[in-house]
């Protein structure tokens, strides 16, 4: 410790004692040596030379060296150049000059040393700055490398994912497509700018896709759609296209990331299922046709009977003496009406057999049910069930497939009648319609049979679920399929009065 203390003291002495003394001494000696020869050239050269020496000492040695130089110079000047020469005495007339010399010397020391300090400070600051800049540059280079590396890894990742991935800017124009997407489309990402982006979508899906995408761009919501995308060989496959926006810190959208998931397989399976359901519905319809044939015959025979009797009556009126023209023409009018009624029956029967793509007709639900009730009449009589219709009068018309919806109500009604067969007479099946909330109507088929067991209620609309020994378990599942295709809901519940209520709702078109 003592050694270190001494060392510090020594250092301190060198810095603040020895070094300023040496610098000041050297400058002053040089100034003195130059003064003698120059004495003969200019008057009082010592003033400039010693000022110069003081300035130099203060500049290079600091304020301490400057004051030492001032002291040395004062002594030397007093001795050599201030009269009386070669003495330390200052003559009276030289005293003011000498004082001015000392003051100037001190001023020069202060100014010079402070200039030097300021310059030193600036230099230090500059040096520090430079160091920092160098450090920063190195750091930047490092992070750039890191970013490049992570980008490379990310790209490798996106290329490794089997899905097709793309990225667009905030405006929706393509910036990047991964390898899979480029291969699938047979195009590079630069070729997918603007309209080309939409051209790969199937023309049928295009309008919806375009609308959805533009809406997403406007609102900034995530975008998801199922669409067919054209491959390089010109074929189309179903894809689930999903896109989410990436936002900057200020909440603005920076870019969109998109992914195409191939759902061709699922789509095909689903279509097969829909087809199968369709076929089943038709098959089931033809099963019940046997039972319905009697009803149809009845329906057709009614107008035919009326037709025949009217026709005979018409002939009688005409053959009467005198002919009763008024009665005959009124009867002919009836014949026309009844023929129309018969042809409507025929048309409806034909409609039962026709396979059609999705049909949506503006239909009155009440009329549909009334028609169906006529078809059900025979079945109801056979099973000794009376059918009561409680139809709301102010129902709006609905866009639906009349045949399919009739099929659903028929199925529900037959189920209800089966349930009623398990209880004693009198048996009554209620078919009810009502308005429900805004833009919805409800159709309910109520029986007072044994009701639905809780474990059945949960599963009764599932395919292949049946409580009947001969049931296919498809009836209610098909009903659900049809209702859901109409954007409706179907469910069952036990009514308060006992028995089950099977009901569905359908949305009215706004």
């Amino acid at each position, binding site marked *: 410790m003592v050694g270190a203390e001494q060392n510090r003291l020594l250092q301190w002495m060198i810095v603040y004692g020895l070094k300023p003394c040496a610098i000041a001494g050297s400058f002053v000696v040089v100034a003195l040596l130059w003064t003698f020869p120059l004495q003969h050239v200019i008057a009082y050269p010592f003033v400039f030379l010693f000022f110069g020496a003081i300035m130099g000492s203060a500049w290079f040695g600091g304020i301490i060296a400057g004051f030492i130089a001032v002291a040395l110079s004062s002594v030397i000047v007093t001795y050599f150049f201030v009269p009386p020469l070669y003495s330390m005495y200052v003559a009276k007339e030289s005293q003011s000059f000498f004082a001015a010399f000392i003051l100037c010397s001190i001023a020069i020391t202060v100014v010079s040393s402070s200039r030097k300090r300021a310059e030193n400070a600036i230099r230090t600051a500059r040096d520090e700055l430079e160091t920092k800049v160098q450090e920063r540059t190195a750091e930047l280079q490092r992070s750039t490398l890191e970013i490049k590396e992570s980008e490379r890894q990310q790209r490798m990742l996106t290329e490794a994912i089997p899905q097709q991935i793309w990225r667009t800017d905030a405006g929706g124009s393509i910036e990047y497509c991964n390898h899979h997407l480029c291969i699938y489309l047979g195009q590079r990402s630069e070729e997918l700018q603007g309209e080309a982006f939409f051209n790969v979508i199937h023309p049928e899906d295009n309008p919806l896709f375009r609308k959805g995408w533009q809406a997403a761009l406007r609102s900034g919501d995530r975008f998801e759609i199922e669409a067919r995308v054209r491959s390089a060989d010109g074929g189309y496959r179903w894809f689930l296209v999903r896109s989410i926006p990436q936002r900057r810190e200020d909440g603005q959208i920076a870019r969109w990331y998109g992914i195409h998931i191939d759902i061709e397989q699922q789509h095909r399976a689903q279509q097969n299922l829909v087809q199968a359901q369709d076929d089943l519905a038709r098959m089931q319809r033809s099963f019940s046709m046997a039972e319905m044939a009697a009803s149809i015959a009845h329906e057709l025979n009614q107008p035919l009977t009326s037709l025949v009797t009217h026709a005979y009556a018409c002939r*009688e009126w005409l053959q009467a003496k005198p002919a009763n023209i008024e*009665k005959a023409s009124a009867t002919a009018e009836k014949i026309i009406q009844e023929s129309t009624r018969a042809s409507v029956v025929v048309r409806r029967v034909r409609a039962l057999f026709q396979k059609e793509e999705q049909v949506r007709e503006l239909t009155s639900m009440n009329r549909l049910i009334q028609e169906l009730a006529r078809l059900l009449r*025979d079945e109801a009589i056979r099973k000794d069930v009376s059918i009561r219709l409680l139809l709301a009068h102010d129902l709006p018309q609905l866009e639906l497939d009349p045949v399919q919806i009739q099929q659903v109500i028929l199925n529900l009604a037959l189920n209800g009648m089966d349930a009623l067969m398990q209880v004693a007479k009198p048996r009554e099946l209620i078919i009810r319609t009502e308005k429900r909330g805004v833009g919805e109507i409800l159709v309910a088929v109520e029986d007072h049979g044994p009701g639905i067991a809780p474990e059945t209620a949960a599963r009764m609309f599932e395919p292949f679920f049946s409580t009947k020994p001969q049931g296919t378990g498809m009836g209610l599942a098909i009903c659900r399929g049809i209702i859901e295709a109409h954007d409706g809901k179907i469910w069952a519940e036990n009514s308060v009065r006992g028995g089950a209520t099977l009901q569905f709702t359908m949305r009215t078109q706004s």
Partner: protein
Amino acid sequence: MTEKPDTSRDERETVFIVDDDESIREGVSNLLEAVGINAKCYATAEGFCAHWSDAKAGCLLLDARLPGISGVEFQERLRTSGARIPVIFMTAHGDIPMVRKVMKAGAVEFLTKPFQREELLHAVEQAFASDRARRTEKAILDSIRARIDSLSPREQEVMAMVIAGFTNKDIAERLHLSIVTIKLHRGQVMRKMQADSLADLVKMSERISPARSAGNGVL
């Protein structure tokens, strides 16, 4: 015995049509009207019952399938209530058990819709004839009953014993009366009953009560 014309024949014979389908009612009534037969239409069996009495002449043209009481049930109900109106059935498709059932229950005819003019008119004619016979028979019976009612209790007693085959002497002994008195009563019975002979009297008695006529003789 003389047949007297019955009192209710002045009302026109009518076909009562009961069918829930209005167009059928219209067509059939139009045809019947055109051939000069009176027709009345009802949508339900209940509606028909409300306007009909057994005294009315005519027949019933009944749809086998009706809402509420079915045609078949209604026929049964009419029969058990004692109404004897002839019934013609019609249906769009009747099965054989149904046809057998209604025919057994006494239906005149079973028409399958759509039916021809002749089928309908023939059935109606048949039904009218049967109704006429029924009504004539009923009128005769009514008159016999009226005649019996006009007898005094003693005369009714004597008549019953005469029919049972007792001689005047037997009757006098049983009733503790003289033979002359019995002969007087007997003469009154024959006159009031408008019977020409004993055989005539027996026939009349058998007509109103075929099962009991051979019994103990008390009406």
